[in-house]
């Protein structure tokens, strides 16, 4: 199971890297989304996958049963999902606004903050 998930995570990271290296904003956004999911799966996998028992503490006891699932990665992933969803939504709107205002989906054409024909530093005083 770990091996299969590790392969899947590797695939996710590969696709994300490929998409993030693209110049189109919308592809980069997809890359960001896939990378986020890859990381969530990674956290899930490193938290051990042995469990078939839900991590519920039986009545009158203080510790969960032997061999139960690790609940912590699930809490971490939940937090990470919420955060990366918020960031993804923001970047999505930002990308759309940039497309409207700058009339560019290609990062090569987004040169307002760093103009391509930037003036040379003044040599005289």
């Amino acid at each position, binding site marked *: 199971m770990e091996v299969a998930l590790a392969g899947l995570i590797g695939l996710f990271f590969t696709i994300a890297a490929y998409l*993030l290296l693209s110049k189109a*904003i919308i592809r*980069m956004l997809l890359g*960001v989304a896939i*990378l*986020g999911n890859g*990381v969530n799966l*990674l*956290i899930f*996998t*490193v*938290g051990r996958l042995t469990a078939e028992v839900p991590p519920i503490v039986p009545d009158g006891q*203080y*510790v969960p049963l032997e061999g139960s699932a690790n609940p*912590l*990665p699930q809490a*971490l992933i939940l*937090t*990470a999902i919420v*955060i*990366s969803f*918020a*960031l993804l939504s*923001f*970047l999505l709107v*930002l*990308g759309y*606004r*940039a497309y409207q*205002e*700058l009339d560019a989906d290609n*990062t090569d054409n*987004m*040169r*307002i*903050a*760093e103009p391509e024909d*930037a*003036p*040379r*530093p*003044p040599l*005289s*005083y």
Partner: protein
Amino acid sequence: MATAGTSYDSLELPPAMIEAATSAADWVVVWPVALALFGAGFLVMLRGQRGIQLPFAVAVILAIMVSNLYLLVRIFETGPVAMTMGKWLPPFGITFAADMTSAVFALTASFAALIVAFYAQTELTERGHRFGFYPMLLLLLCGVSGSFLTGDIFNLYVWFEVMLIASFGMLILGGRRLQLDGAIKYGFLNFLATTFFLIAIAYLYGLTGTLNFADLVAKAADIPIGPLTAVALLFLFAFGVKAAAFPANAWLPASYHTPAVSVSAIFGGLLTKVGAYAAIRILVMVMPDGHANFQWLIAVVAFATLILGPLGALAQVNLRRAIGFLVIGGIGAIFAGFALGTMHGIGGAVFYAVHSMLAITAFYLLAGLIEQMTGTTDIRKMGGIYAASAPVSILFIAMVFIISGMPPFLGLWPKILLVEGGARADNWWLVFALLANSFLTLIAASRLWAHIFWRNGQEGERSEQPNPDLHPLEREESVFGLVPTMALMAVIVVLGLFPNWLFSASGIAARDMLAPERYVEAVFAEVPQP
């Protein structure tokens, strides 16, 4: 390490639940975060009330400063302070813990935010108020304070994101085309860095099974060196991007000059230092063995950052972009201390970060005053402010010396610590880079001074021709813009003349960072010994 840190495995679990309430004084560790968060929420509710925004934000930041000051005094007297949430003892509950580094950084950050809160009054439009500048400022401070004060690595990630989301909002406040362009680059690259941070956390958790700094200190020592090095490299990359260290610095000068000046100031002052803080906290304190194999790499990064930062500043015609490159040069000095990793190195890095937070904020605010007087960001079109406003020109020449670390200002002392550390470690390349950085920064900053202040008019005009676009500061700009800037500069000058307490603070900070027994003890203080 004879603390309770390693012994909880044999602990009876029922006693691991805290029965007694946390003592009131211990709340001081979370007050800065909680106050900022609630203050921000309150200000969002009152976003129609323009008049109340500034007074309320200032009141909240002052309360945060008082809390940070109390925390600092307490750490001076009794050592690190820790508090664990939710009735669970460490390492099960989420811990907030502060040592000297955290407290000094948090106090400095809240002071910078206070100055910026006043300054923002000069340039905020009705729209800026409606879209919530002050709530976002408080949220940013919440994220920054949380990053400094947390004692839990996943929590650190969460505060990074709080900070990041607030900074997105501030960056595009106003929505000009320039800002959208800058925000795209800032957004994607910072998101990528935090994702790498999360990947590194996942691996570290997989290796150690814990998230608590103090617990990690003990457990990271037992990990085989190979995986530990890989994790440490991932952390270094993530924090290097956050701190804008070479070669991952391109996003900073592409975005920091686009928003309003007060936003540039708070970003330049605080955000990169949070990255540097996290790098030192995780790599030096939590996993000191992890980066032993690539200490040379950190030194190379520090060297390149130190040299290339001010060289970039030299090549700019946009005033705020030039300052952006000087921010990068300052990060180089912090990384130089980090690369040395000795008492002098870490102490110097902490000291330099405090200096850099204050100085960079003041520098951006000064740039804002200059832009308001000349109506342009292009230094070729500036000129003649020397005659138009004496206070601004005095502040700027002082700034030139502060930023390049000339005596008698604050920047000198951490540079001395770092140079001494480099000499003792026989790392003469870093010593050379630190001195060359001061020299190049002096050239870059005094060139700005010459172009903006010294000559009468614009570039290429005859020297007696005054600058036609120049107009003096209006009354509101003087009260809310010039006076806070002067106050900030005054603090820098006074701290530079009396640096003793900062010297002792950075000494304590470096000792607790390199030998974190006191930190670990403070976190595990309430764990009953089996």
